[in-house]
């Protein structure tokens, strides 16, 4: 019976192995064709690990560990290393592709030569539900061409025009299918800047362009021939611009340079420590970054201190056997902690709204008393930072309350009674005995809270999005931005293009800061000894 069971498990194992390997061998050539070398490396390593683990009978432990560790390696360890690698490249908008991909892209570009003047014919402009433009070109009886109009410098044989005699009825009038909308002359004029860029492909070198828009009758189109704009010479590693007849040479920043102008797209190259140098030397980057860094530390420190202060106050106040309703208090104080932060932040965004918010309504008497304008919470540096700390204290104090209460209850009562016998006042015994013992037991948790707030992206991003903006900065950055939210804007969401290389160098710096915080935490908490004890 047991023997049969093993047979089945072996069969299952080989079944899954076969599926995995089939997938891997499907994906590996693709990764090669896309030149995703890092992806290839990681797929290769995982494939080796899996086959090594499950074909061999010897490594019992690996069989248990491998499934989980694959994800750990692929999506935690590997990205950390990859991030480090990216920080030494100029990977950013305009330098997204590899060199090979950029050359292929450049060679696909074409330019029009308007050499077939004179040949004019009726052209109708249509639009489908997704607002893509289509042309119907009435060349002659043999050629009623229809197709999607694409950007003039593009080439894609998917969009070749087709002969559609069905679009014309027996009277020679054009019939538009229901799913399309025909643009009138006026509408064509309104869209003319867009239409100018479009063309209907006939073959590789010929396309139809809108030539003259007519408000009363049909507009006219013309044939134009197009040619490949750039040709690449792999012997000399240069590009030739056929439209201008100039030779383009290899630039220093991962692109070709024609007549002193760099050609887009370029490709990503290794730039050494340039990103780090920019952080240190580039005035327009260094200024905002130092504001952000110092605020990140202030924010984390103040958040922990304020929440700890409130939590301690409440815990000490309520931690007395004769105080009734403790359970009720406790269960209410947990609520701010129990609600997902992204919800609480929305509510506070409403409460702090300068025009309609309740908090300003409460403050209204104060504003009147001191004759000042109501605070526009998210407008100025000081008030938005205050708002961030206010909200974070509300979010954080329940946790502090819980851990301080726990720590207080674990302090031996005899100790305090002995102090009382020796004549210590309650105040003395609190500051001399309770508080130091408390700090010892919860300091690792405080450091943990510091590290958490150091990277508290959700709060900053959802409450203020980093604003108000720092004026004059070279990048999208604001006064409440912390390092991680600043990096996020830099890399993906700042609206000034993707700056992966620079962002990765900032995350590398954050990595090291977290590393230092953790080292301190280990040192003070003796946690490592506990870890060793647990091995």
């Amino acid at each position, binding site marked *: 019976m047991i023997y049969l069971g093993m047979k089945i498990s072996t069969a299952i194992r080989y079944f899954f192995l076969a599926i995995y390997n089939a997938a891997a061998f499907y994906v590996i050539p693709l990764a090669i064709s896309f030149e995703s070398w890092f992806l290839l490396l990681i797929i290769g390593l995982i494939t080796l690990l899996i086959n090594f683990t499950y074909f061999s009978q010897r490594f019992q432990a690996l069989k248990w560990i491998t499934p989980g560790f694959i*994800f750990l390696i692929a999506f935690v360890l590997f990205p950390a290393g990859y991030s480090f690698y990216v920080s030494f490249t100029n990977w950013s908008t305009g330098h997204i592709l590899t060199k090979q991909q950029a050359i292929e892209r450049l060679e696909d570009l074409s330019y029009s030569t308007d050499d077939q003047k004179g040949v004019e014919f009726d052209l109708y402009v249509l639009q489908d539900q997704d607002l893509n433009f289509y042309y119907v070109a009435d060349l002659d009886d043999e050629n009623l061409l229809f197709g999607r109009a694409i950007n003039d410098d593009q080439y894609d044989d998917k969009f070749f025009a087709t002969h559609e005699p069905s679009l014309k009825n027996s009277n020679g009038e054009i019939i538009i299918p229901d799913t399309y909308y025909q643009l009138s002359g006026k509408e064509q004029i309104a869209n003319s800047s867009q239409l100018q860029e479009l063309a209907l492909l006939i073959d590789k070198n010929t396309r139809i362009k809108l030539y003259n828009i007519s408000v009363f009758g049909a507009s006219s189109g013309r044939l134009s021939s197009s040619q490949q704009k750039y040709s690449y010479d792999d012997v000399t590693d240069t590009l030739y611009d056929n439209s201008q007849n100039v030779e383009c040479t290899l630039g220093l920043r991962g692109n070709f340079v024609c007549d002193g102008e760099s050609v887009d797209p370029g490709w990503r190259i290794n730039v050494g420590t340039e990103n780090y140098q920019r952080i240190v030397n580039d005035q327009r980057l260094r200024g905002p970054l130092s504001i952000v860094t110092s605020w990140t530390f202030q924010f984390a420190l103040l958040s922990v201190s304020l929440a700890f202060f409130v939590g301690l106050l409440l815990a000490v106040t309520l931690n007395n056997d004769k105080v009734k309703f403790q359970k009720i208090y406790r269960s209410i104080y947990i609520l701010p902690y129990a*609600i997902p932060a992204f919800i609480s932040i929305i509510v506070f965004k409403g409460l702090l709204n300068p025009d309609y918010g309740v908090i300003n*309504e409460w403050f209204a008497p104060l504003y009147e008393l001191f004759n000042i304008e109501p605070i526009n919470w998210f407008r100025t540096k000081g008030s938005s930072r205050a708002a961030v700390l206010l909200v974070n204290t509300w979010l954080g104090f329940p946790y502090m309350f819980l851990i301080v209460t726990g720590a207080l209850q674990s302090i031996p009562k005899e100790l305090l009674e002995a102090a009382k016998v020796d004549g210590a006042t309650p105040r003395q015994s609190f500051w001399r005995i309770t508080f130091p013992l408390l700090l010892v037991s919860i300091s690792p948790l405080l450091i943990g809270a510091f*590290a958490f707030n150091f990277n508290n992206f959700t709060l900053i991003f959802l409450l203020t999005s980093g604003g108000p903006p720092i004026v004059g900065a070279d990048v999208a950055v604001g006064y409440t931005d912390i390092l991680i939210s600043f990096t996020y804007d830099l890399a993906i969401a700042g609206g000034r293009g993707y700056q992966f290389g620079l962002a990765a160098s900032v995350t590398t710096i954050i990595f090291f800061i977290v590393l230092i915080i953790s080292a301190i935490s280990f040192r003070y908490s003796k946690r490592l000894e506990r870890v060793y004890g647990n*091995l």
Partner: protein
Amino acid sequence: MEISRLISWFRMYGWRHLVGIIFVVISLYPILFVITNSFADFPNLANSKLIPDGFTLKHYESLSGSPLIPYFRWLFNTYKIASIAGLLNVLLGTFAAFAFARLQFKGRRVGLITLVLIQMFPAFLAFVAIYLLFFQIGDVAPFMGLGTHIGLIMVYLGGSIGFNSWLIKGFMDTIPISLDEAAKVDGASYSQIFFRIVAPLARPILVVLFVITFIGIYSDYILAAIFLKDTNLYTVALGINIVFMDDFSNEWGSIAAASVIAATPIAVLFIFFQKQITGGLTAGSIKG
């Protein structure tokens, strides 16, 4: 006489209740504010009254039916992602923990220390690399690239598996090894020991870790924001914060209703498991 007793009661205990009640108000006010506004006929950011003038369910009704704001779709996505990732996380974590707790092998110490070290770095720190990695994965295998739930689930898996296996391993250490040895004598294989003895006995910690992982993923913003671009694929955290925020004060009623629906199950789950979640090692790892 009565008054002086009252004063001495206040000096002993009364002020404690005063402080306590002030913070009860501070804790509860924003919560009650959003709940009552979600039922209010005229929800108003400026309305500090906690008892609204009229009671209505229209904001809850408005959440279903609009194709532009597929709220319940977001909710479904979130539950789907968080439960799949949470379950797999605990399952794979338990496998790894079993090896570390019960098997002797080379590299065990190094493996354990690696787990502890990794756990200190939040997974989203390397988000630039994760973005670029999945951008390339999308070229090769579009079903798990950027913009897909599968890719996002895989990232969540990597992010908390180290932490979970470490804690499960600690719990397994407390299960008497004599149970395994007895089974071994009876001819049980390692997988039988795992499935029949160790895993069932470790169930309490597995449930808690599932809940913690679930809540953590439910509340995640940054990784979901990096991955998901299609409104229909959003999680609830993304949906509420991206789609509703365009017109904050006019949408306030719907936002309040959406918040109440999204927060209630999590709050209940959290309060139910509060002791385990806030206890010891697990501290500080959850909110986000």
